[in-house]
């Protein structure tokens, strides 16, 4: 890359890499036991059913083995006894940035959140460690009856809607990390969009880890009632500490009849973060759920957004981009569970492995008996940049019945030397040529992203590709 660009971009690369010495008013201490769960319940003043739910989840978490019979052994390096499970400065989020304490406000200002909110968002929630520091929704959207608030707050204010779907899409025992989340969850977003309401601008949540040895366990539940439409975007950053940090979220989406939910993630955690997330959606008759999932950061990401296609004609889509650089393992994929006739699903996954980075695709497509007219299309493309880059693909496709159609394709390639040579002949540096090629590789996917995100993503890819050649 040319010198002047590099300096400009260097600042951005380190954009999320800072932390403030915060005095936390609430701290559950280090390690995980029933006491920690009780502490969280007491601080939040939660009802007994939540306490019972958490304690049951803790048991399940303790009983479940690490899934290392299929997943990476790197999981074994997580020391659950050294993690802090709840840290908050205040339990209640602020409605204006002016009320947010200075150091936390500075954090989000450096990340550009208030500015983005003014520009193009319908609502923003900003979570700092365990609790939301800021939560606001534009008045017009609020008047339509849209609810957008932190999960902690929603549990208190709207238990009747929350409880109906909470833990239903992703049961506690789904996997070890969903159980962990269910035991110590805090923060995350709750969104309810009433029937027929189309939220014109995206709602955004921003997740920030500030403290060292911290575990963030947000819980997000989005419900789009019949015919409603909503787009939700989340961003994640954390400073780079020497010790590992854990982020283990559970995200449940419910798209009722004819509803549309689009969920966009740009994950740029620091390279010490274990990002072990369970995301799943229900799509009822005629509903559409689309996951757009970009994984750029973290040490290890394990995330397989899924859609359970419950009603006739429902559609599920996962568009996934993963970029794995030195010391990173992006273990991502998708799950499509077809449970109704005429349901369709589409999975497009593109991964780029740079240096010694490792990108893994895991997919599951399930079509049970006696369904007709179900279709799935899966495409996985992997690009390997350096000699020692690594990629794996592990799809599992189960089809029963003879009126369904499934296709899966995967390919692995490298950037062609001819292409690079062609561009260099026309005056591009090798780095620029490489960036251009890689951006071209993911271009057909990024074009489908909202503008701000595709620009951001292109920039992140440029940064990651820097110095990858030679």
């Amino acid at each position: 890359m040319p010198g002047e660009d590099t300096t400009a971009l260097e600042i951005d690369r380190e954009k999320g890499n800072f932390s403030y010495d915060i005095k936390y008013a609430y701290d559950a201490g280090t390690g995980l036991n029933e006491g920690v769960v009780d502490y969280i319940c007491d601080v939040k003043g939660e009802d007994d059913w939540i306490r019972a739910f958490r304690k049951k989840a803790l048991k399940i978490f303790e009983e479940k083995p690490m899934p290392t019979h299929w997943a990476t052994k790197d999981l074994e390096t997580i020391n659950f006894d050294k993690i802090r499970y709840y840290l908050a400065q205040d339990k209640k989020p602020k409605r204006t940035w002016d009320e947010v304490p200075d150091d936390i406000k500075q954090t989000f200002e450096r990340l550009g959140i208030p500015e983005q909110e003014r520009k193009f968002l319908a609502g923003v929630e900003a979570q700092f460690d365990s609790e939301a520091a800021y939560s606001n929704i534009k008045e017009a959207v609020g008047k339509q009856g849209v609810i957008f608030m932190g999960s902690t707050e929603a549990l208190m204010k709207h238990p009747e809607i929350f409880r109906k779907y909470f833990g239903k899409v992703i049961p506690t025992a789904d996997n070890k990390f969903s159980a962990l989340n269910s035991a110590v969850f805090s923060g995350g977003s709750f969104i309810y969009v009433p029937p027929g309401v189309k939220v014109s601008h995206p709602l955004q949540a921003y997740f920030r880890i500030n403290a060292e040895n911290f575990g963030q366990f947000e819980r997000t539940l989005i419900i789009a009632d019949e015919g409603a439409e909503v787009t939700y975007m989340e961003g994640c950053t954390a400073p780079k500490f020497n010790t590992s940090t854990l982020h283990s979220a559970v995200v449940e989406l419910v798209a009722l009849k004819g509803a549309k939910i689009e969920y966009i993630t740009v994950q740029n955690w620091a390279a010490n973060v274990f990002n072990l997330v369970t995301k799943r959606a229900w799509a009822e008759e005629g509903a559409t759920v689309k996951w757009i999932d970009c994984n750029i950061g973290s040490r290890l990401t394990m995330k397989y957004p899924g859609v359970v296609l419950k009603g006739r004609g429902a559609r599920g889509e996962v568009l996934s981009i993963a970029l794995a650089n030195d010391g990173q393992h992006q273990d991502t994929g998708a799950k499509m569970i077809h449970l109704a006739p005429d349901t369709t699903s589409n999975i497009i996954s593109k991964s780029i492995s740079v240096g010694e980075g490792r990108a893994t695709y895991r997919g599951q497509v399930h079509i049970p008996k006696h369904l007709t007219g179900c279709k799935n299309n899966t495409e996985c493309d992997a690009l390997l940049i350096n000699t020692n880059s690594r990629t794996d693909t592990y799809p599992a496709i189960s089809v029963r019945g003879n009126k369904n159609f499934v296709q899966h394709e995967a390919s692995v390639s490298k950037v062609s030397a001819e292409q690079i040579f062609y561009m260099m002949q026309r005056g591009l540096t090798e780095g620029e040529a490489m960036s251009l090629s890689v951006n071209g590789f993911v271009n057909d996917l990024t074009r489908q992203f909202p503008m701000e995100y595709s620009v951001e993503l292109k920039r992140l890819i440029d940064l990651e590709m820097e110095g990858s050649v030679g």
Partner: protein
Amino acid sequence: MSTNGTGIAAAFEKHLASQQGAPAWWQELKKKAFAAYGALPLPTRKNETWRFASISGLSLEGYDFGATATGAVHTELADRARLVAQRAGRIVFADNQLVAHERVSDELAARGVIFAPLAEAIVKHGDILQEYFMAQDPQLGSEKFAALHTAFVTSGVLLYVPKGVEVDLPFVARTWSATQGGAVLPHTLVITGENAKVTMVDAFDSADRNSRALALGFNHIFAGRGSRIDYYVLQNWSDQTLGFQINSLTAERDATINALAVNIGCNHYRCETQSIMKGEGSHAEMLSLSIADRDQEIDQRTLQIHQAGHATSNLLFKNALADEARTIFSGLIRVAPDAQKTDAYQTNRNLLLSGDAEAHSLPGLEIEANDVKCSHGATTSQIDESELFYMLARGINRAVARELFVFGFFEEVVSKIGNEELASRVRELIQHKFREEEARHA
């Protein structure tokens, strides 16, 4: 499988006694294998290599490892179905007993070609066997079954073709299961020297289509530098057979192995195929066609290991499923960090002929080198209604049209069979099975 070891332990004692005349290393090998069999854990569905498999159907309880049919049955089976008229040699087993052995011509023998039953080979060619017998460990989940096979195997063939010898006619090993409740353990070991060329055909049958039996077969194919081996397995065990077939292919520099399997029989069939591209410029072709009907389960696991660069491998597994049949295809291409310029492909196609059939497909890749071309594809679909309509509109009845589709579907694999006579046999097998299926529904 039996966890109550007494029955099988007694069977092993008896078996070992029958091997008293065999070389000491052979007996030692068997003892070790039997101990390993006892020590190794049973597969569970939690093992990735057994995902989706019906583990409960794998009970080895009640099979007789010492089963022998009468001499009259042997004579009949030695004659029945000669498979191909033109051949370089033939060995026939019934219930692990040698019943016919057509030796190689004097000319080939003089050039050093060995085509011998295992019992003869362990005595006369101990050096070869000690180097190659079960030399590649199974990597796809059947370690325990490999140990059991080694412990009890007596039948099987050794085909050794030395440097520079090319044999055009195929060698045939025919293995019959003849006794109700019996266990058969076919074993095939093919080794070629530099630039040699040979074709080997394994054909598995049951004397009685309704007999319940256990088949536990292994083969190891070693292609030396620049050599070529065409290897065919025609699996037509009875409908009630529990079958295992574990295949291992190893290709040295510039060697080519073409392996093709036809899977017709068994109630539950587990087939593992691993290929190792050991030398640069080597190539393995792995083709398979399976027809599964009734409540049949055909469970196929494959592994393409690219150890050396500049090598190629190509896999095409096609399954047609009728009734309530299940198939599992789980494939993995593994490219080692230094295996640059690898070209590896893997394709699984499933044709569902019934609304109750179930196809699982797990096509995987593990790539640790960047300058490679690798792809995999898996599709599961059914006969296209508009194509069917086209045929019906031209007066072709539905059953015939359906048969044509299935033939068309498989022809991509059948057309790769290098021996015309053998290709016709395969078409007959497909047709026979298909007609049976049609007749059941008529």
